[in-house]
Every structure is written in structure tokens, then in C-alpha cells.
């Protein structure tokens, strides 16, 4: 990666990176769109987030779903770890709490594949700037 030389270059980079993400979101291929973020701060990992993420990746392969998995920091819901955020195309992201392997399977087969809601939704109760 070449070094960023100026603020203007940095801003151009930001726009490009943003439009890459938009492109991903607006693409017509619905299968490639599902994004799952797993809250993986120390505490999330201790509650089993890493293992659940690995399990979900295997399960997604098995179900032939192409999902983009990313790790992220603390979402703040300590009372419901491990937590994941699922963003399906054209829909608002939804946060699920207490995700173990069974619930992960349920989220993939019911919510991601059939748009059927499952228990354990955590309403996002904060605003981010």
C-alpha cells in the first residue's frame, strides 16, 4: 500500500471505500449481501463469540449461503453475550443476543434464509454519531 500523501487523498480514499461498501449493499445478487458482525472484544470472546463465529461460518458453507463475516468491537450488551448483528439486503440490521451454536443455526435457517424472525432480538438503544 502506497502512503497517503495528503488530506485530499485521504478524503478521496474514504469516498472510494464508502462506495465499495455501498456497492456491496446495492448489488442485485441477494446471496452475496448478508453481512454478519460478531462482537469480539475480550468479553465477547470469553462468552464464546469466536467459537460461534467459526460454527456459523461452517454452517453457512454447509447451507451454501455466502455471508460476509466480520469481527467487531464491543456492542455494549454484556447481559446478552455473545451478540451478533445480521444485516440482510434492503433491511435494517438486527442484533441478536445469547447466540450459541443452536441459536446460530436457527438464525441462519430461519431469519437469513426465510425472513422468519427468531427470539432474542436486542433493540439497539443508542444513537451513534
Amino acid at each position, binding site marked *: *500500500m502506497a*502512503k*497517503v*500523501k*495528503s*488530506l485530499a*487523498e*485521504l*478524503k478521496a*480514499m*474514504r469516498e472510494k*471505500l*464508502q462506495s*465499495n*461498501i455501498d456497492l456491496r449493499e446495492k448489488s442485485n445478487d441477494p446471496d452475496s449481501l448478508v453481512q454478519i*458482525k460478531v*462482537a469480539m*472484544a*475480550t*468479553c465477547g*470472546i470469553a462468552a464464546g463469540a469466536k467459537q460461534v463465529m467459526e460454527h456459523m461460518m461452517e454452517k453457512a458453507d454447509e447451507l451454501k449461503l455466502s455471508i460476509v463475516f*466480520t*469481527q*467487531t*468491537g*464491543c*456492542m*455494549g*450488551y*454484556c*447481559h*446478552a453475550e455473545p451478540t451478533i*448483528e445480521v444485516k440482510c439486503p434492503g*433491511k*435494517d440490521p438486527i442484533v441478536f*443476543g445469547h447466540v450459541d451454536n443452536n441459536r446460530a443455526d436457527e438464525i441462519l435457517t430461519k431469519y437469513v434464509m426465510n425472513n*422468519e*424472525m*427468531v*427470539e*432474542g*432480538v*436486542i*433493540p439497539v*438503544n*443508542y*444513537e*451513534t*454519531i
Partner: protein
Amino acid sequence: MHVLVCGGTGCQASASAQIIENFQRILAEKGLQNEVQVVRTGCFGFCEKGPIVKIMPDNTFYTQVKPEDVEKIINEHIIKGRKVTDLLYLDPENKEHVSDSKHMGFYRKQLRIALRNCGFINPENIDECISRGGYEALGKCLSEMTPQQVIDEVTKSGLRGRGGAGFPTGVKWGLCAKNKCDEMYVICNADEGDPGAFMDRSIMEGDPHSIVEAMAICGYAIGATHGLVYIRAEYPLAIHRLQVAIAQAREYGLLGKDILGSGFDFDIELRYGAGAFVCGEETALIHSMEGMRGEPTLKPPFPAVHGYKGQPSNVNNVETFANVPIIITKGADWFASIGSEKSKGTKVFALAGQINNVGLIEVPMGTTLRDIIYEIGGGIKGGRKFKAVQTGGPSGGCLTEKHLDTPIDYESLAAAGSMMGSGGMVVMDDTSCMVAIAKFYLEFTCEESCGKCSPCRIGNKRMLEILTKITEGRGTMDDLQELRNLAAVIKDTALCGLGQTSPNPVLSTLDNFWDEYVEHVVDKKCRAGVCKKLMRYEIDKEKCIGCGACKKNCPAEAISKTDYIAPGHKLPSMMIDPSKCIKCGACISTCKFGAISVK
């Protein structure tokens, strides 16, 4: 279509289960059960207006829904597509109904500024950070602002130290910048040590680039080219993510020589601490980084004059730094518009203890404890009674019911006998003993005291001995006075912040829970049933059938037969000799007749 019904404790208490049932029943009656799915969710953090029902995908947000309103919502909203206006949230300011939860951010008590990217970006990918505007504040400083303008902007924003003491950050930078010389240091204090606090760790693990960027900004403002992060070795993931962030920033030329073509050089190194609480004090921290014992020294000279390696240094806490980039990009006026009169912006708290929604929260300064505990926190676990909330960790104090409507900022917490601290917030219910809590924090300070000055080393030890006496039922009223005397001396004479604030947990509990101390001393009673030595196990002689099961199980041979045979029973009842009883509780778990209780 989905109907989300709040299943938080508060909403369950106000019939959310009945609401779910009604939805399911009426939808089934109308044959809509396959089109509309009803789901119970976690707490919306808006318990005051509960029960909450949210209809997706149009995000309609109904408040204070009663079971009998369900039919109306189904007939009007779900079948005819018309919103039920009188159940929508009424904006208290302009008296307008708000339907779309996306446009009612103001109902949310939380505002994430320092945590803006946590849980949003992949912390190990600089591109995601840049796509959220990362490093643009640094770019703006380097290309459009002079160092003095950066300092002025931070000063004007009203940002104050988030480590707990609340010193104005911009002023601190300005003091350091005045001592300009060739070798200066920017130090990030990541030695988070309050029991149960993890705000800084979460920021470093969720958004390490904001710290890297802010340190570079600070370096530019004060004229330093070296940055150091003092972080505890017991935070391995935070260390790893900071290392990744620093390496990526170097690769992009956002750290190193000639950053963004401006001629400004800055780089960051990590220094590991072994996890001593006192090393959060800035002079002790600096000594520890220099390879010496982590002991504080008298201020002045302040680190701004004589810091790391004797050079001018500026020390700020992680959360303080996390606020800096956004102040530069959004402006001091924007930041100053959030919060209370003297405390600007937001504060992150680690909400813990006997509360339903334990979590990491960020609220604007000036939010009341009531909002935090009963809205965001969803109330006390098991519907028990709120007793106290501890803020500020070992340097802070306990606040009670009468402080629930106190707006949280530096001044009002100090006036109430506690302090902001770094952000630990432990909620306690009536099963907590306040004397035992004070003792717990004092044990912590005694262990963590570096031992350099005698008030802290010896004074706290004496206070702990007195508290131990009280919890064991050997206290006198004179002891309570002695606690106050010792506390006053330690506060006045201890060398550093650790010692000066260490009596606070004792003082604030003495002030707010005097009755409980007196009870321990005079009645030898612990109302919460926590202080083991004050508990008495008793056998109800009317209930005891004399089977002797408890006697067999008592490891201390404290149980013996009496001469009394209760009416209707054949054998004499048992009794416990309090002088032999070790309060292990074995008898209670053995007795099948509920004859043994703790008094």
C-alpha cells in the same frame, strides 16, 4: 411483517406477555398467522413508556400499549395500513406524534461518541476506519490548523479528563506546549484499574485507530514526536489490536515521517504495565515506564514540565483521546452543545451489579442516575429494591435513592460525596451490606497502596482493621468516630490521588448509611445478611421434630438436644450453640422441615 414486543423485565411487569398472547390469538383468528410473526425482544431501554411494540419493516414504534389495544393495532395498522396515532410516542417538546423509530433518536438515552466505531467497524482493518472518516481529523489539523488552533479548539469544546479527575484537556495541552523543547512525549494512560471497569479496554479493542489518531493530533498540538501507550499486560487483545492499528497506520503513512506531506513526524510505542492500580496515577505511570518502581512523586513539578525521562509530557486517558478526533472534525461548538453546563460531551460507564441490562453504556453528561438504572439498565434484578450505586471505584462513593435524580457530571457527583471516576458503576440492591462494601474497596486500596507515604500505607490499614472489627461484631461507637478522624487525615496528607481519595467509600457510606453502621455496632446485626460473623443460626423449637439430621451434619458439633418436646412431636427439639457455630449453613440445607433460619 414482524411484530416485536418488548420482553424486558419492566415491560413484562406491565403485561407484555398478555400483549404477545393477544397478538397471536387475534392474528390466528383472522388467518394472518403466516404473514405476521410476533416475537419477543430484549429491553428497548425505554421502560418509562413501556410496554413497547414495534412493527417492522416500517419501524412504527408504539408506546404504553395495553393488551386491549392489540386488536386496534391489528385492524388499523396491520390490515388497513393506518398507524394508530394515539399510541405513537408524543414528543414532549413539540407535542407531535413520532411514528418512525429511526427519527426518534432522542428517545434513546444513550449517545455514542467515544464508542462511535465500537461494534461497528472491524478494528483490525484500517480501511473500515477510514470509510467512517478516520484520520481526517489528523489531516485537518496538519493541513488547515496551527498547533495553537488545535489546542484552542479542544479547550473550547470543554472536554475534561475522562480518567476521573476532570481536568480540562485543552488547558493541559496548553500547559505542556508552553514548555516546548526538542524531546517531548504524548502518553496515553491505558492502565485501567478500577474493579469492574472496562471502558478503555473496549475502546482499544473496538476502535484502536481513534487512539492512534488522537495521540498524533496531541503530538502536533504540543510539539511532540513520540507517543507512548502505557497499557496493562493483562489486556492482550487490546495490545494486539493497538499493535495492528499502529502497523497499519505506519503502512499508510499516517504515522512515521512526514505525515500526509506536512513535514510532521510522529510515532507510537507500547509500554506494558504489570497491573498495579497506583500506576494509573500519572507520575507513578511515568516512573514505571522509566523502569523504576511505580511510585508517585509530589506534584509540582507536573509531567507537563518534568515528565518521561525528565522531558515535558502530556498524559491523557484512553477515553479522553477517543473524543478528540470527533471534536476536530465536528467542531468544538458541536461538542460543547452536548452535556451539562460544566461537563461537556458524554461519558462511558461499565454498568454492573444487581441490574437487568448489565452493559457498556455511553450517556450525555447530565443524564440522571434514574435514567441510567431504570431506563437503560432496565431496573433492578428480580424486582428487588434499589439500595445504592457505587461510582468512581475505590476513589468514589455510594449514592442512594435521594441522589437518583442527580444529573451525572463532575461537580454534582463530587457534591454528593462520590466522584465521576473512570466510569465503573455498580448497582446494589437490599442484599448488599454497605459496611462490607466499604470494607471491600478499602481492602483493594490497602493491597494496591504503593507504601511510599505513611497516611496511605498505615492509615488505610488502620481503617481496614476497624471495619473488620465492625463486620465481626466487635465495633464500638468510638470506632465510627475514629474512622472519620483517620479519613480526614488521610485525605489531607496522602501523597497522591490514590491515597487522598481512598477514604471516600468509607466516608460516603458513613454519611448515607449511618443507621447500618450503628446497627452493626450496637445491635450486632447485618440487615443484608452479608457479614457472616453477625449471623445467628436458630432452630425454631416448635417446628423441629427432633430427627437429629442437622446434628449429624454439623461439622462443629454445635447442635445438641433440648428438653423441650413441641406439641404434636415425639422427640425433643434441637438447639444451636452460637459459640461453637461456624455459620457454614450445613444444617439449613439438611433440615427438611424448614425449622432452621438465619437471624
